[in-house]
């Protein structure tokens, strides 16, 4: 009694192999093969197959006693794994702080984590590591946490993978959270990879959507892959915690409620400075506009259509008038017209301004994934079929060198500048 494989349909994606609770499937030469001794015809694989390459066999009228025993034995093993997973409860958000200031992405994640925790009927907890940061804990409560785990130790003054990973691993092993969320910042990406490896669990980077699957209770983690050309939903079935990172400004900032209170649980790190192999010698501020690009409310971005370095001045004039910031597509950066720190998109910065002006930007998917959550998008491009017009709130088909100066002029007149 085993599922049937329709070989011509199989695309060798391996989804079924991972889904099978009985390890009855494997890929041989890129095609799935069923081990009839292990398969119970449960149908899990049939359900996940994206290519209709598997189908259920009609169950036989009666199973032999041995077959029944075998199925029961395997079900027991699966139940045991599931029981172990049930020990893991609670949604955690790593509270990223730099010199006593919590990164906004941590609050955004508290907002998202609140929804997940409510859905799972469990607690939302913040995790705060640092030196002299105790007073920051209440902020996490204001943004939705029920509880904050705090490790306050001079060794944690500067962020270092070694000490922070050790702290988070220790807390996670002790309190067993079901989900850990972190910002996909340099710190979050550095830390999450180390922690997930230590905990031997799954980690999904740069999620754009998180939800709880109703039937399984698993965290569905959706993220762009292949430079944003594809969206993939990832699950972590048999390992806990389920870990995910989310880029800044992908989730909405929740309301702050300074009346909210909760519990702060203090824990010790147990590492002395002499044993740490990495030292932070200095931190140097880069005096560049890119610092603000990801915080800008108005972005005036230029692409290939700008034509040359000189023409960026036309964009700058409009940006200055509106109190906005200059941005650019990869094409403009690669042409050398503007620095890489201005680049918006998959390999640059993700932005979510109130208004995004896209001038001479065709709208390659790599660019769109970095700006398409902007509230309003205004596009000017000579090509009427440019993909940017598909996402633009307002578009003008025309030459930006004519349209942009005219816009600046009109703004000046209307605003009486």
């Amino acid at each position, binding site marked *: 009694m085993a599922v049937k494989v329709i070989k011509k349909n199989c695309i060798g994606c391996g989804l079924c192999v991972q889904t099978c609770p009985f390890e009855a499937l494997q890929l041989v030469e890129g095609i799935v093969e069923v081990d009839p001794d292990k398969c119970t015809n449960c149908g899990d694989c049939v359900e*996940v197959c994206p290519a209709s390459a598997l189908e259920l066999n009609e169950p036989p009228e009666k199973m032999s006693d041995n077959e029944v025993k075998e199925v029961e034995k395997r079900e027991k093993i699966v139940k045991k794994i599931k029981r172990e997973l049930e020990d893991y409860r609670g949604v955690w958000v790593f509270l990223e702080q730099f010199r006593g200031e919590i990164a906004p992405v941590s609050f955004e994640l508290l907002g998202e984590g609140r929804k997940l925790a409510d859905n799972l009927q469990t607690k939302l907890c913040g995790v705060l590591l640092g030196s002299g940061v105790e007073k920051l804990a209440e902020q996490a409560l204001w943004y939705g946490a029920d509880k904050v785990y705090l490790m306050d130790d001079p060794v944690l003054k500067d962020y270092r993978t070694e000490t922070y990973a050790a702290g988070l691993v220790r807390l996670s092993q002790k309190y067993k959270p079901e989900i850990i969320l972190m910002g996909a910042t340099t710190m979050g990406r550095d830390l999450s990879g180390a922690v997930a490896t230590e905990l031997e669990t799954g*980690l999904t980077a740069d999620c754009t959507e998180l939800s709880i699957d109703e039937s399984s209770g698993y965290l569905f983690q959706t993220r762009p892959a292949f*430079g944003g050309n*594809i969206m993939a939903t990832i699950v972590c079935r048999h390992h806990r915690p389920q870990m995910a990172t989310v880029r800044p400004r992908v989730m909405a900032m929740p309301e702050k409620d300074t009346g909210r209170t909760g519990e702060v649980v203090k824990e010790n790190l147990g590492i002395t400075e002499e044993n740490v192999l990495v030292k932070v010698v200095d931190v140097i501020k*880069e005096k560049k506009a890119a610092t603000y690009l990801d915080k800008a409310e108005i972005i005036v971005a230029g692409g290939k259509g700008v034509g040359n370095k000189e023409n960026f001045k036309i964009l700058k004039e409009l940006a200055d008038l509106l109190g906005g910031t200059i941005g650019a597509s990869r094409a403009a950066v690669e042409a050398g017209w503007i620095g890489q720190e201005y680049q918006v998109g998959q390999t640059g910065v993700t932005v979510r301004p109130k208004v995004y002006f896209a001038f001479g930007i065709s709208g390659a998917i790599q660019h769109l994934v970095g700006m398409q959550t902007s509230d309003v998008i205004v596009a000017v491009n000579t090509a009427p079929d440019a993909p940017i017009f598909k996402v633009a709130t307002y578009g003008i088909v025309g*030459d930006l060198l004519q349209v942009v100066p005219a816009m600046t002029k009109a703004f000046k007149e209307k605003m009486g500048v």
Partner: protein
Amino acid sequence: MHFVVCVKQVPDSSEVRVDPETNTLIREGVPSIINPYDAHAVEEAVRLKEKYGGKVTVISMGPPQAEEVIRKSIQFGADEGILLSDRKFAGSDTLATSYVLTQGIKKLAEREPFDLIFCGKQAIDGDTAQVGPGIAARLKIPQLTYVLNIEEINVEEKTIKLHRKLEGMREVISAKLPALLTVVQDLNELRYAPLPNMIRAARYRPQVWTTENIEVEDDKIGLNGSPTAVRKIFAPPEREGGEIIPGGQENPEETARKLVERLLKEEIIADK
């Protein structure tokens, strides 16, 4: 000094699409390249070898055709290359991949201990940035990500001083070797491969290590060793397009004015 560089063969991501009818990847005709960040990692290791002496070994996990990225690395000036290739590795996620690479590096280290391991900051196909940190965690060595500049290596004391690129700032770090570094593109500029390297690369056949050669546990590799599973893939949702204000070509000035009026009237941009 022994420099080990992890490299990955990736599809040129700008060419990958989803078939909207079947929701499967269209891989046909997509060219394979060395992950661009890894190319800069190899370049940096070769530059350090030129400065401090030593050897550069590249290591990759992938199908047999991934030996192409090892040849590419030889062009850049690497001395040796190892390809970890076995059907059993197929379907590995980042946790399983970092395990296989770590086991490969450990085997390599039995012969020649390493001082520095390099990785690109992330691969352009998955963009996860997880494998580098995974290897460092498994080897229990310092992990220094987003490296922008290597100031100096003290060969006697086995220490390194370098700069990391953070949001709007750079961090100056000193660390004990051996260590693992992941690098950003601004670290260096790729140089043209000299002719002797090109010739050597064309003839080069990397060593291929399978599960026979390195010590791996079956339940830690491939699909079985991968906690994460792709539940579904789909084309990204499109944002609803809005309105084209006509007349941009015939009368740009008037059209621009209309647009500005709309933006102000709908209070998208406030008239302070």
